[in-house]
Structure formats: structure tokens, C-alpha cells
């Protein structure tokens, strides 16, 4: 029984990891490629880690939960790095299948700091300091 659950978790995890990378290699533009690794790969590695926790808890003398730590860490960091990557891509005007948003919409704190004379940048900086 345990063997079956473990095998299913491992296979599901590996399949999701593979699909994430397949999306990375196969999709057409950068912004759609971003979806593969952030979602599929995160869940894939998550279920692999759950399988690992189950495996070491059942065969060792004590329960093993530190895999949860890596899972949690990945679930927190994957969206953050995806956000930063897509922000960097918008900043560099990477080619996109979807119509790119207005220039004003992607004016982030970084470019606002460079145009120090504009009043909105001033208020933005004040907001960042508080």
C-alpha cells in the first residue's frame, strides 16, 4: 500500500517536473514560458519532497519532516522569482504574443527613481521610505 502511494507520488512529481521543462522548451514567447517552471515544476518538486518525507518517516526510526521546509521555501520563492523575471522582461521590452501594456503601467520604482524630477516619483520615494 505504502509502496503504491510512494510510487504514485514519485511518478506524478517527476511528470510535473518534466511538463514544466517541456513548457519551457516548447512555448512561443517568454511570458508564456514563465508559467511552466513557476507552477508545474513547483508542484512536481513538492510532491517529490512529500514522497521523500513519507519514505524516510516510515523506514527510519523517527519521523522526518525537514522536507517540508524545502517545499515551503519553494512555494514562497517561486512566485517571487517569477515576478522579478517578468518585471525584468517588461523592462527590457522582450517580444510577447500578448499586446504589451502601456509604458506607464510598467514604470516601477526603479525607473521612477531615475526620473527624479517628476512629482509622482517624489511621492513614490516618500512612500517607500515610510
Amino acid at each position, binding site marked *: 500500500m505504502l509502496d503504491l502511494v510512494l510510487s504514485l507520488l514519485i511518478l506524478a512529481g517527476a511528470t*510535473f517536473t518534466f*511538463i*514544466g521543462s*517541456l*513548457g519551457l522548451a*516548447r*512555448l*512561443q*514567447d517568454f*511570458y*508564456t514560458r*514563465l*508559467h*511552466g517552471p*513557476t*507552477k*508545474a515544476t*513547483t*508542484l512536481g518538486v513538492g510532491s517529490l519532497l512529500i514522497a521523500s518525507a513519507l519514505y524516510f518517516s516510515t523506514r527510519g526510526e*523517527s519521523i*522526518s*519532516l*525537514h522536507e*517540508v*521546509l524545502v517545499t515551503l521555501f519553494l*512555494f*514562497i520563492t*517561486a*512566485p*517571487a522569482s*517569477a*515576478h522579478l523575471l*517578468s*518585471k525584468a522582461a*517588461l523592462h527590457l521590452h522582450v517580444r*510577447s*504574443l*500578448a*499586446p*504589451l*501594456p502601456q509604458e506607464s*503601467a*510598467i*514604470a*516601477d*520604482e526603479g525607473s*521612477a527613481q531615475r526620473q527624479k524630477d517628476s512629482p*509622482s*516619483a517624489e*511621492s*513614490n520615494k516618500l*512612500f517607500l521610505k515610510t
Partner: protein
Amino acid sequence: MHRWLPHPLITLALTLVWLLLVNSLTTGQIVLGLLLAWAIPLFTLRFWPETLHIRRPGLLLRFAVRVLADIVTANLTVARLILGRPEQLRPVFVEVPLLLKSDLAISLLANTISLTPGTVSSCLSANRDYLLVHTLDTADADALAATIKTRYEAPLQEIFESC
């Protein structure tokens, strides 16, 4: 209380992380974990400008369960889209207007959006009134923005910001 234990929730979380890291539950490790978790927030006080207030812990728990379930369904959707025909995807940038004000609530919302329904949050506007979201495949962008607002933003607002 406030001077010596500025962030009780962070202390609790750090203790849990320490116990997971050493992977044992002996008294010595619990004491060491509590000591570290008490000292670290004191030394990193300047990185935590706003104190955290969870007003509805029950709702937060239900929200977490819903997000976990959504992560699984979203993954199946994304997997199906990747294995399908990439030429037929309809990617769109959507602007989601924000009602949330606090840093923590906005970043939680952005993380939730990135992890769930075929969307990645791309950019927060400089004056924080909307979030730019990229979707992998959608027919109706406005309906998607409405879904994000009712399904994820409303509970977050109730948990962290309502009086």
C-alpha cells in the same frame, strides 16, 4: 511586551523552522529554537517596519486550504495547456485594480496569483493601485480580473485589513 517580543508570530514561525531544520523534538532543541527565534527578530527589527495583525485566523486557514486545492487544479490546467497546441494559446496582460493597502497583503495576493489559475503577477504599479497580471490562456480578461478580486483579494482584505 512590545519591546522585548516585537513580533510574536515571527518568533513562533522561526521556532517551527528551527525544529524542522534540526529534524528532532528534544527539549534542548526546543529551548535553543525559542532562544534563536526570540533573538533574531530583535536583531533584524529594522527589516520589519509594520507589525502583523491577523484578524481572522480561521478564515486564513480556510483561505490556505482553498489556495492549496487551487494550486493542484491550476497545475493540471497548465499541464494540459502545455501538452496541447501552443499556437492556440490566448495570452493576455490584465490589470487588476487593488483595494489592499498593506505590503504583506499585496505580496500574499501576488504570490497567490502566481501560484494559482494560469496567471503570473508581473508588475505592481508605482502608486500601488493595480497589479499587472499575465495569463496563459483566457477568453474573457475582465471575468478573470473579477474572479481574482472575489476569490483571493476579498478574503485577504478581511483577514488583514478589516476592522
